[in-house]
Every structure is written in structure tokens, then in C-alpha cells.
């Protein structure tokens, strides 16, 4: 072998070489849990199948369950049957550490296993720790990693920490978690994950706005009458009743997913679409969202809870009849709210947010509803079917963009009605869309934090959400009930209809 710098790879020119993870160990805390089997392992298998993992990759699972290395490998193989030779090769190097997160011996053993993996698989001291445990354990694990000298990278290596949501259950607990994490990790090592940001269509909001000359000029108060953001689920709480009782829709959906999508929708054009550019602008946008006073919470926020009803042809139980839910529960399964944004671009444009369980269908979308034309030169009787223009970004399930505008109905009269022009991802791109977790796991291993949430974003989300929780605790916005399979309580309709607007039917 000769010494010195090797030549560049001459064979790579002209080939679209996929991004590949560098040599790395992914350490999963909560390795025997549901998230690991259901999401993390299948996503890693997909990344492996696309040749985006090198041979110098391994997973070390850490959990309380009594498993051997071989048991964990079987668990990984069973989680993704028929995943192909790349996954089989990767799984053959997986290791497992059994132990309590509060026990120093667990982390002594982890250090020893990591050194063995570095030696056996050539992972070079690079680590990504993934906290897939119950949230109560996040701080314990983060601190223990620091105390055992596992949080700081050796020279030329990297160590990162991926933290699942929820990031605290109020501003105080979020700040306490941040303090605990920062005793061991610098902020640039911390990757707070919200899988919504890994969805292609959420990222497409940026493409729509900043890759097209026709949309961004109208994306402001001068043309936009109001914004509607809907995150609707048709399912109930299922087996998550116990967890949901401690969370509710505001913490479970609004504090994270809704605020992230809102940030991307409202942000100013970043200088560059990179981690700092995007996240700086998101923080600025969220900072401009006005905090509601207790009185405003009463008039601008509706909280609801589903009763029994019919969804997708099936009769379903009410929330209070669900497993793990108190029969007199006051936890909200639905939130509708009107927010205001105090900045040059959005001043005076109400932002309507609605999220809930047991709504008629599963749909997530952002709709920009535009002002009506100043003067309609047609007989009003002939333009009865004409709505204001809108642009709708459908995040799921039928990903795409719809533009609604007026067109003349063919015929002798000048009748005008609203028509929609659909762009469907499914009709234009047949490429396999990577699952959100696939994208985000690879980003964490590659070291691209663009789609992860920074501490100041979490802080801004809680700044908006916490006063609502506090007002509710003081009795503002009584719990309204709604029949399963409807779009929420009547109060939600009144919230928007009192201003002459109405909810879209997604």
C-alpha cells in the first residue's frame, strides 16, 4: 500500500450516490420497547436496504428486559422479516446490554460493549444515543451517560443524543430536562426528534414557498385572509389511554407537531435551507405568535372530548369508556384555537388550528385562505358557488397540493364557481417515499440537524401552549363534548363562524 492521500473515487462520477451513514454505533435505550420494534428497527432495515449503512455500523440495545445478544438479534430480525442480506449482515453485529437506567453498572457494561463493538465493527468511537424509553427516564439516562464519560467525543469522533417527544409536559419540566441533558451534552449534540418534520410533504412547504416565484409574493397579510391548520385523526386513544390521560391533545399534538408545521408555514425566507437558517427563522416565527391571556383562552380556544358515535362505518366508544381512561376524565381529545401573529407579514391574519381524535377522517393539511376579490363584476346569484381562493398543502394521507379558484361554468350564463386543481404526489412521483423515521435516523447519523428541534424552539412552543394549560386549570374553556365521527364540538364552529369564516371540509 502506498501512503498519502488516496485518489478521489473515480467511479462515483455520474452516479447518484445515496447519502451514507459514517461508521457509527446506534445505542437505543428502550431497545425492547414498542417504538424500537415498530419504528426504529424497520426504518434502519430500510436504510440498510438502500445501502446507506456501511459495514462499520452496529446497534447496541439497552433495556431492562432480560435478553442476550442473540435474543436481541432475533428481535431485530423478527421485527423486519425478509429485509434482505444487508439487514442480516448488520444485525449479526448487534449487541445488547441489560440493566436498570439508574444503575451505574449498566453504563459500565455499556462502555465495555461499545469498546468491543469499536474493535469488532470498526465504528471508530462514533455514537448516536437514542432515547426511546418512557419520558421519565430521559434525564436519568442523559446524566448517566455524562457521569460515565460516554457523552463527550474523542478527538475526530462524534457523539449525539436523539430525544423523543414529549419534551417535557410544561415549560418547567422541559427546562429541567434541558438542564439535565446539558450537564452531559452540548446543545449541538442534541437532536430532538419530531417525526412530522421527517415527512416529505412537511418539507414540501419549504419547496412550495421558496422554489416558486408565484406563491411567496402572495404568502402574507396583503393576500391571505386566514390560515387553517388541521391535524385530524379518525382513531381514538386505543391502548394509550393511560398515557393520554396525562397528556391530552394540546400536549400530544399542538405543542410539537402543530407548532412545527406552523413555524414552517409562517417563517420568513431563510438565507439557506440548512440547520441554522431554517431553525433560526422558525424560532422567529414562533416568537411572533401572541400569547393568549386567560380571558382570550376562554374566547379563542375550544377544548373537547369525544363521545360515542360512528367512524368509518364502525360504532365506537366514547373517550371515557376507553381502556385506562377515568370515567369522569376531563382530558381534551380535541382542541380548536385562534392564534394571532404579531409581525409585519402576518399581522391581522388569524391562524385557526384544529386537532382531534375520532374525527371523520385522518387528515393533516395547511390551508391558506385568500381574501376575496375587492369587487365581483358578476351577478351575485351567478357567483353563489364561488369561494375565496385557497392553497392547501395536504401533508397526509393523500400528499399533495390543491389550489382552488373560480372558473366560468360552461353555458349561456356567466355563472362562476370554485374548481380545484390538484397536484398529487402519487400521480407525479412514483419514487418510494422514505418513512419519516428513516430520514431522521439517517440525518442523526450523518449529523444534519435541520429537521430536528432546537432548545429555543421547544421554549417558544411552550411559551404559546403553557398559558392555555394554565387557564384551563383555572377553569377557562369548559370541556365540550362531541360525537365521534363529527368535526368536533359546536363551539369550534362558533369560534370561526363568529368572524364570518368557516372551517374547511378536508
Amino acid at each position, binding site marked *: 500500500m502506498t501512503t498519502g*492521500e*488516496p485518489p478521489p473515487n*473515480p467511479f462515483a462520477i*455520474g*452516479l447518484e450516490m445515496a447519502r451514507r451513514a459514517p461508521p457509527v454505533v446506534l445505542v437505543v435505550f428502550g431497545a425492547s420497547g414498542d417504538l424500537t420494534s415498530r419504528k426504529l428497527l424497520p426504518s434502519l432495515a430500510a436504510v440498510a436496504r438502500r445501502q446507506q449503512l*456501511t459495514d462499520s455500523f452496529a446497534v447496541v440495545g439497552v433495556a431492562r428486559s432480560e435478553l442476550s445478544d442473540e435474543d436481541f438479534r432475533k428481535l431485530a430480525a423478527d421485527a423486519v422479516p425478509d429485509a434482505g442480506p*444487508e439487514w442480516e449482515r448488520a444485525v449479526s453485529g448487534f449487541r445488547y446490554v441489560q440493566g436498570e437506567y439508574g444503575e451505574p453498572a449498566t453504563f459500565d457494561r455499556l462502555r465495555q460493549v461499545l469498546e468491543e463493538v469499536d474493535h469488532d465493527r470498526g465504528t471508530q468511537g462514533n455514537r448516536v444515543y437514542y432515547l426511546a424509553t418512557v419520558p421519565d427516564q430521559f434525564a436519568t439516562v442523559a446524566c448517566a451517560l455524562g457521569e460515565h464519560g460516554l457523552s463527550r467525543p474523542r478527538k475526530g469522533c462524534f457523539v449525539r443524543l436523539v430525544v423523543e417527544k414529549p419534551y417535557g409536559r410544561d415549560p418547567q419540566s422541559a427546562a429541567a430536562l434541558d438542564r439535565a441533558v446539558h450537564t452531559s451534552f452540548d446543545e449541538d449534540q442534541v437532536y430532538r426528534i419530531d417525526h412530522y418534520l421527517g415527512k416529505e410533504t412537511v418539507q414540501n412547504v419549504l419547496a412550495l414557498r421558496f422554489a416558486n416565484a408565484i406563491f411567496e409574493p402572495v404568502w402574507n397579510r396583503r393576500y391571505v385572509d386566514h390560515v387553517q391548520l388541521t391535524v385530524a385523526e379518525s382513531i381514538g386513544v386505543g391502548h394509550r389511554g393511560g398515557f393520554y390521560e396525562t397528556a391530552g391533545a394540546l400536549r400530544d399534538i399542538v405543542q410539537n407537531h402543530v407548532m412545527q408545521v406552523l413555524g414552517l408555514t409562517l417563517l420568513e425566507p431563510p438565507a439557506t435551507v440548512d440547520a441554522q437558517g431554517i431553525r433560526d427563522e422558525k424560532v422567529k416565527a414562533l416568537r411572533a405568535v401572541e400569547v393568549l391571556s386567560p380571558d382570550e383562552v376562554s374566547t379563542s380556544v375550544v377544548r373537547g372530548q369525544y363521545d360515542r358515535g360512528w367512524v368509518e362505518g364502525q360504532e365506537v366508544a366514547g373517550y371515557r369508556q376507553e381502556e385506562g381512561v377515568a370515567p369522569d376524565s376531563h382530558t381534551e381529545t380535541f382542541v380548536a384555537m385562534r392564534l394571532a401573529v404579531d409581525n409585519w407579514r402576518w399581522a391581522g391574519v388569524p391562524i385557526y388550528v384544529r386537532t382531534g381524535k375520532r374525527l371523520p377522517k385522518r387528515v393533516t393539511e395547511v390551508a391558506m385562505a385568500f381574501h376575496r376579490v375587492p369587487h365581483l363584476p358578476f351577478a351575485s346569484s351567478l357567483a353563489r358557488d364561488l369561494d375565496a381562493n385557497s392553497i392547501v398543502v395536504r401533508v397526509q394521507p393523500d400528499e399533495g397540493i390543491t389550489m382552488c379558484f373560480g372558473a366560468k361554468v360552461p353555458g349561456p350564463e356567466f355563472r362562476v364557481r370554485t374548481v380545484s386543481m390538484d397536484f398529487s404526489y402519487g400521480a*407525479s412521483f*412514483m419514487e418510494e417515499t422514505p418513512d419519516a423515521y428513516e430520514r431522521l435516523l439517517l440525518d442523526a447519523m450523518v449529523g444534519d440537524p435541520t429537521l430536528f428541534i432546537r432548545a429555543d424552539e421547544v421554549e417558544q412552543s411552550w411559551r404559546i401552549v403553557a398559558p392555555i394549560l394554565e387557564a384551563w386549570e383555572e377553569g377557562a374553556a369548559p370541556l365540550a363534548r362531541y360525537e365521534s365521527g363529527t368535526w368536533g364540538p359546536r363551539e369550534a364552529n362558533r369560534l370561526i363562524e363568529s368572524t364570518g369564516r368557516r372551517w374547511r371540509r378536508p
Partner: protein
Amino acid sequence: MAPGVVCRWSAENVDLGEVIAQAERMRSGESRTATRAAVVNLVVVTAEPETAQRARSAVGGLGAHHPGRIIIVLADPDGPDRIDATIELQETDLPERHLWWEVIDLRVGGGAARHLSSVVEPLLVHDLPVAAWHMGEIPSASGLVATGAHVILGGDRPSDPDQSSLEATAALTRLRHVTDLEWLATEPWRRALALLFDPPSARRILPRIAGARVAGPPWRACLLGGWLTDRLGLAPGSVQLEAVSSETIVELAADDVLVRAASAPLGRVEARIDDERAVTVGGAERGTAALLAAALGRGGTDPAFVGALGAAARVER
């Protein structure tokens, strides 16, 4: 009607205006309930009825992956002045993907066959990009249809590569965005070698490679030989080509090391350095339809293809 065909219209000795009107009626018919595929116009031009038939087989179902409209033109410049047309509205059979597209089959004879652009242009769906697939002979500049179209070559080439066909292809790349299906077919071997030499430690071998052997179907072997010559800066005589109809094999020889990329089970290519480091990639057994779908997704002429063409003309066959 054949499976997937929603409706069909056919006419002989027809005016082109009638074909255009019929295509539009089908595309925007009142009974339309599915999403219209709207990505690209694909034009297939051939002078051979057998080639046109093979094109029909290859594009069957392709609409579900790419085009908004497929136009197959069988040109017969020496035949009588007439146009026969068949239009089929087809629907994908993929679950929960109700996509429709049109396949327009034209038999063009006489003067119109010598001015095919005048036949094709009015039938293109507006504002969509155009790809023109020349399955057989490499077209001359005057034989190109649809201004600015992405040219796709290969799939049914009548002869082995020689100096003139390589030069004609190279000339086309200077005029249009060109994608060659035989070149795309070599991608798994190229990708496997690229992945094999991705680690810097492996790349230290490259300066010591003095010769190569490529065995495979003639166009594939020729392009791979040209690619290796170009990428490694090898002397033209140091690459040995072997035309065989069976599997494709690439071997690179350094003083003490043998690098080999060859077919592996399950449609994969395995590349290895001696018996140590190995990588595998998929896609080795893609048929014409899959290669065509891949070609339609290409954004511009691959610079490595241009380099390979130039070098292939110098490689001894």
C-alpha cells in the same frame, strides 16, 4: 378490451386533427374519475413493425410510473400517404392508485413520415417535458422529433457497437440530453465498483490497476470498457472486451490484487477485492421497461456516459 384499458378508439386513413380531438376528448371526458398522470410525453419512433410491437410491450404499465401520454409512431416514408391511429385510455392496476394515461398508436406513411415532428408536436400534452425513445437505429440530427426532447436510445439495437455508431451517439449528446438504456443497464456494475472503492483505504489500490477485462453483451461490455478506460486513465489496449450473451463480468487487475464485479443471486451484482471486501447492489436484471422508467427520471446527459463513449471508440474490439 385488454386489462387496464378503460376505453379505445381506432380509425384508418384519418386526419391528424381528428386524432388530436379524440385524444383530448378521452383525456378530459366527463366520465373521468381518476387522477390523470401528468409527468412526461413519451414518443417512440421506429420504422419496424416488430420494434413497435416490442415498444408496446415495454411501455405497458409504464404510465403508472411516469408519462402523461405515450405516442408510438411507426413510420413508413415509402408507403402511401396516410395515418392510421389507435388511442387507448389506460388505468394503472396498482392498488389505491387510480391513474389514467393515453397510449396513441400511429402508423404514418408517405410524406408525413418524413416530417414526423409535424405529426408528433400537436399531440404532445402541453407544458410537459418530452422524451423521444429511439429503440433501434441511432437517429441522425434530422431524424429527431419534438424540439428539445430528451432522447432515449437503445432497447432493440440491430447491430453491435462500432466506430460509427459510437460517434453518432457521441454527436447526439452534443445536441440533446441523451440517455442510453444499455448504459443504464451497466449501472449496477458501476455502482458496485463505486461502493467498493468508497473507503479511502480501498482507493489506494486504484493507481496500481494496469488492465481490465469486461465480458458481457456487446453494447454493455463496450460501454463498461470505455468507462473503465476513461475513469482509470488506462491505455486503450489494456482493456480486453469479450462479447458474450450471458452474464456481465468486470475484472480489474493490479499487481497483487484482483477486483471482480459479477452477477450474484437475486438480480444483484457483487463486487469484491480478492476474497476480502465485498459489496452487493441490486438492479442487475432490470428489463427494458424498468430501464425506460429509470431513463425518464434522468435529469441530463450523464458526463460519465460521454466519457465512456469517447473512450469506447478507442478500445480495441
